């Protein structure tokens, strides 16, 4: 057997395996050096055709400064600054929501301000009639500021009902890196760990 073709074949076969392992390593690295932030999610439209595989939700932020778009339906890239005093209980809703301010055009390396304890890079949508302002971390945005939360097929309908009946009971642990990238570390119901 000639060496060069064999090496080429070995390299081609190793490529997907190394890449899959690297993807896992990258995610583990992202989670290991990150700061945890618990964010409530609210339901959107439960009539998703793939219901049972995942549920569709959006992060429920306590806005100190909302995204402002130049035109209707426009998306604004940037980040949210999680304010240092974000762990204050919202008495009206009886829940803790991270208090955030939108920073339009923020990029990794930009300053954030002394009152920010965390920066999450992503995209913001301004408030529209009937819809609150939305923000989704860049790596989690499934379109329109929504996120897909993968849950078991058995628990999906129950969680969807929970989202409608008791908003804020379902929360997500976000692992936020210093460069602003975020990943979902875990899901919680009433503070109890649901799934990683």
């Amino acid at each position, binding site marked *: 057997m000639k060496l060069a073709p064999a090496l080429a*074949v070995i390299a081609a076969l190793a*490529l*997907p395996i190394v890449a899959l*392992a690297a993807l896992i390593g990258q995610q583990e690295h992202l989670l290991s050096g990150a700061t945890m932030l618990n964010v409530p999610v609210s339901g959107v439209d439960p009539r998703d055709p793939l219901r049972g595989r995942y549920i569709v939700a959006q992060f429920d932020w306590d806005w100190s400064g909302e995204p402002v778009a130049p035109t209707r339906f426009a998306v604004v890239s940037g980040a949210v600054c999680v304010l240092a005093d974000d762990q204050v209980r919202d008495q009206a809703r009886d829940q803790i929501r991270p208090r955030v301010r939108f920073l339009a055009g923020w990029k990794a390396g930009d300053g954030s301000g002394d009152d920010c304890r965390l920066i999450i890079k992503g995209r913001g949508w301004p408030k529209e009639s009937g819809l609150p302002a939305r923000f989704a971390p860049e*790596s989690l945005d*499934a*379109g329109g500021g929504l996120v897909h939360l993968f849950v*078991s097929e058995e628990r999906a309908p129950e969680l969807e009902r929970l989202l409608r009946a008791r908003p804020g009971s379902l929360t997500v642990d976000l692992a936020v890196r210093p460069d602003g990238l975020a990943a979902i570390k875990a899901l919680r119901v009433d503070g109890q760990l649901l799934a990683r």
Partner: protein
Amino acid sequence: MIPEHFMRRWQAAGLIDSATTERIAAWEASHRRPVWLWAVAGMGALAIGLGVMAVIGANWEDIPAWAKLAVDLALNVLCAAALFVFWQRKRAWAREFSALLLFGLVLSGISLIGQVYQLQSPLWRPLLLWLALCTPFLALLARSQLVGAIWAVAVVTTWFTAEAPLRHLFEAAGVVSSRDGHLDTDYFLRLLIYLPACGMIVVAMARRLSPHAREQGVFLLRLGLVGLMVAASLSVMVDDQLRDDGWLRPAAVAAGATLVAAASLWLERDVTARWPVLTLIGASFAAWLAGLLAVGASGWTNEAGRALLFIVYWAVVGGLAARIGQRTWFGVAFTMVGLRLLILYFEAIGGLTATGFGLIGGGVLCLALATAGWRLTRGVSRRPAKAAP
């Protein structure tokens, strides 16, 4: 059972004598496979597979994430090792099967990582990653038409799921324009269908350079040409209401892709195999462009013009098929022309469709077309066994 039936027919027609019939029957008997036993064994294997999947599925939530990922990676490694061994030992079918299995396993690995780490992204991104990771080993090791077809389906699926970023890309490059934030989808969608067909022709011709993968290349070329015919037919058939004067840039991009596809034919040394494909590519581009230029036109002249263009295009395809002895494609072309004529007939008589005379006329037209098709198809000489494409 089936060979016996055909042997009796051929013997009755005087094509084979009784001695040949006996020899074929003896050979078939000695090479007969226990189909029923295979079917039972296959059902057993399927039941075991489904059972294992059901057990894993029922306990999916209880299996730790690291265990799922470790098993998935291990399966990928095992399959890659098996593929390497089969390639070394020149075991063709085992090699093709394991290549296909690894192709699927890599996709399942990407999906599993997405599920475990709750990753979000548009569908085209994981699909593109999948193709980027798998195309090198498929190009080096897989040579069958089946694997080629599945790879082609994966590429086309990825292309169409990437419709949104492609739209932005084309818009940013000024190929298609948007008005009031809305894209002129009539031009964009025509390009979206036309370009992958040209790309498939280039890939097919590159594949034909490898003597081991020549058959796969021939098959991919056919897929590319079918894609061109679909793109040209849709461009002629779809009657858009949007009007825009920016047809030049999409037409230029399509012309460039057509030229690249046509130039790739020069990778083939056989000159006789080149001209029918070149003619088909040229005719397809002409029909596609004519459909593009007719966007926004209205009235009965537009409808009649589109119908005539469709018929002329498929007549050219039929003529080419007849020249190179492709009876099947001649039949397909004739059927397309016949169907369009029938649709024209029903469009022309309108409300009369519901009347007895209207239906009788449609039936007579069908019978006349079938008779003409039968006579014409019989007149097409069969191509030589080894003729390409």
